[in-house]
């Protein structure tokens, strides 16, 4: 018996992809294996570590907990795209400057979550950053440089806004 399959249409990073995939295949695996978005990382496959975080229709989501067929018709954004957008580039630059990553495996998910935090809360406290990012595990950095990078990005954005005002 061959695996039940279904065709799905995904818009990933503004480009439409029509793929036929096994019904049981996670979105994370489809993004990686079928479409080549290897910036999506699979760390635990049970929704704990946050490495597979992507944006689906604008909301941050664990792509290991979504079947591909569930995402039919959805607009998906991955780190490859988000890191190049002007709204996130300052955050990415600050992550690099502050060494807010070591092995880098958690980083795509961490950056996407941090971007969502800053969109919701432009002026967070360190405690708020730590609480918001608690769903993204990092085994290397000890988190402090990540918190620093988010705080500095927030401060930079406020300063830029002040200059424009």
């Amino acid at each position, binding site marked *: 018996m061959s695996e039940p399959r279904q065709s799905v249409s995904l818009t990933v990073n503004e480009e439409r992809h029509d793929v036929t995939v096994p019904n049981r*295949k996670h979105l994370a695996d489809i993004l990686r294996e079928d479409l080549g978005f290897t910036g999506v990382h699979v760390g635990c496959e049970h929704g704990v570590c946050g490495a597979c975080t992507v944006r689906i229709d604008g909301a941050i989501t664990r792509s290991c907990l979504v079947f591909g067929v569930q995402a039919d018709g959805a607009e998906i954004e991955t780190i490859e795209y988000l890191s*190049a957008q002007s709204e996130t580039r300052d955050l990415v630059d600050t992550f690099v400057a502050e060494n807010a990553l070591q092995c880098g495996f958690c980083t795509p998910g961490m950056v996407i979550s941090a971007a969502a935090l800053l969109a919701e809360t432009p002026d967070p406290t360190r405690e708020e950053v*730590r609480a918001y990012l608690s769903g993204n*595990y990092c085994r290397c950095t000890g988190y402090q440089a*990540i918190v620093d990078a988010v705080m500095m990005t927030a401060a930079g954005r406020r300063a830029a806004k002040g200059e424009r005002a």
Partner: protein
Amino acid sequence: MSKQILRAPIGQSAPRERARRFATGRGRYTDDAASLRGLHAAFVRSPIARGDILEIDCDAARDMDGVVAVLTHADIAGRYRPWRAGNALLPEMKAPEQHALPPSRVNYVGEPLAMVVATSRALAEDAAEQVFADIDPLDAVADIETALAPDSPLIHEDCGSNLCVSLTSGNGKFGADFEDADLVIEDTLDFGRHTACPLETRSMLAEYDPGSEVLTLRISHQCPHQLQAELAKILGLGQHRLRVISEDVGGAYGLKQQLYQEDVLVCLAAMQTGRPVRFVADRLEAFASDNHAREHRVSARIAVRKDGRITGFELDDLFPIGAYPQYPRTSLGEGNHVLRMSAAGYDIADFRSRLRLLFQNKALIGHYRSVGHPVACAITEHMVDRAAAALGLAPETIRLRNFLSDDSYPRETPTGVHLHYLSQHACLDRLLADMDIAALRSEQAKLRGQGICRGIGIASFVELTGTGNGFYGPGGIDVSGQDGCTLKMEPSGHVRCMPSVTDQGQGTDTGIAQIVASVLGLEVADIRVLSGDSEITPHGGGAWASRGISTGGEAAWQAAQTLREQLLLVAGHLHQRDPATLELTEGHVVDASGAQITTISEVAHICYFRHDLLPDDMPTELMVTRHAVPRAQLFQATNGIQAAYVEVDTDTGFTRLLGHWVVHDGGTLINPKLVEEQIRGGVVQGLGAALLEEIRYDEDGQLLTATMADYLVPMASDVPDIQVSHVTSGTAEGALGAKGVGEAGVAGASGAVLNAVNDALGPFGATVRQMPISPRTVLTALRAAAASATTPPFEDAP
């Protein structure tokens, strides 16, 4: 030619090229590599801890959709050489034979029994579920206390005992009474079983080209040359026909340092099928089959005089290593380091220690970052604090009275470790200033009055880094303590740099580039570092024992110096100057006055294309390889100290971390930011060990912690900001003066937290003796103290 002083970009916090790639989703981790006609492996793993294999029926699985091969022991026997993890320096150590798949007996839950290779991982898993393994269960050895009992089952009958090896060391007689003691305190600490838990699980992709008979293994690993050497032996291939590539590695921390059965099996499957074979462990497989770490029961006795002098220290470490010693390094290093590092920074006349490694029907225990150090630090510093409390001394006072004197170096420890210099006094002074100990104690006292229970803990540690060839090489284990670096200057004057040391996020590549740039008068961006490929880099150790800069950086420095001399020789001839008067700076050759004579790129260009301008006998080699290995001492020993400030909720048992401080002696800091982030990351792994992390098995050896919701690693909200300061002292060898920094964070963090929690619980008369310090551990200690409060204890024993 004059020796250069260290100059920029050494000492600058240059950003990492890899970080830019990673943050934009451009990492190249093992599973990111595409493969045409690739196959996927899944494993049938033992569901029980110990049993005899009666039959493995693969017929149904072989007929399934997408299945290309199903392999059991019978299918692969004779196609590889089994291995034994021993060390020739310790012939009495038991080294049972290990197989890629077991011939007759399973010895732990998660041990691979059969391998399924199919066109997708999902189909391979489907087929693995249809493999029927008939196993006759046997009683498991899953308890450290009963493993040595006469009636205990033997895990390896041919070994005759569940004792893998027993060692003693020190300068006193183990078990003898202490002389010259006013007080002897005994205690026992239990350390939980951990695992390094990198976010990227073990991953590998093997491809075999029968035309050239070359096997290429992409694998998430720290030590590609070591793996190349081992797989060549096991598979019967020449080392030159095995290429091991570990490009980007999503966390390793010692877990990706050994040989695993799956490494051999994917190679065998690739050679058999002629197709690429990939294996990426899922998280359950990772918890069941990755090397675990720690788990010690350590008993200690400390002898002190009334004046606060420690006169004796004895340590007895019971260390259950799982079903086999890890291969090829064995599991001895962890226990050996506990013996070596315990009390190593204190001036103690009578030090003795014993180590016993036990077999258990559990996954193997191997290396995890800061091998042995956190255990040595915690037991030592716990005992020192207990002695201080008994004598009514402040923790810093008893340490100052017993630290090795600053003017006593160089010296050897009672276990034979050479200490060039330790900066313990300077580190303690700095720590007390950084944490403002007086203010902190005053706050603690004030809050105690309000029923808030806070504690301050200090833990000093000695640390072994940059290990040379002393244990593995003479022990018959092909693990390199030497590291090399190849530099190739292109005709443009840019440099390709190929170090044997590897980078799993530490920033080693960047540090090496800074060293090369410093010597050659170039920018970091002019240096492209290519590491983690056994086919292009010199043979070397890779990543272990904090060698990236202390050893690998030294090799890069030497290679760059040789290249520099070559460039200056040619430039001197071309411009009729004495090379000794010339220097390389900002991409130029300059004279003693700083005037620019020519560019580096012009000299490089001439070395490749314009031999007509040079004498026939003038060398023009712009490709250089140099190796470095510590020779004067086996370890580059250094030191540091940490402090933790915690709040314990005596109703719920929860411990909250409020502050953490580190002072460390890393010698010359090539890139201060990367050093500090190494230390912070290590501290948080140690905080996880102190409060959260534990792999648990039941009494039958069944694994209980199978997901990341069971095995808790620290989250951002669990940990405080960590203040890191540096003290810098010199090294015995090497031009750079850099010491290892990777172990320091883990080494002291858990000991500091243990002492802080016990400081918090002191007023209740309670003592915690177990890590992780779970809420239950705290409440149990409080209840035990409350129960014994009515009847005063007879003695100071636990």
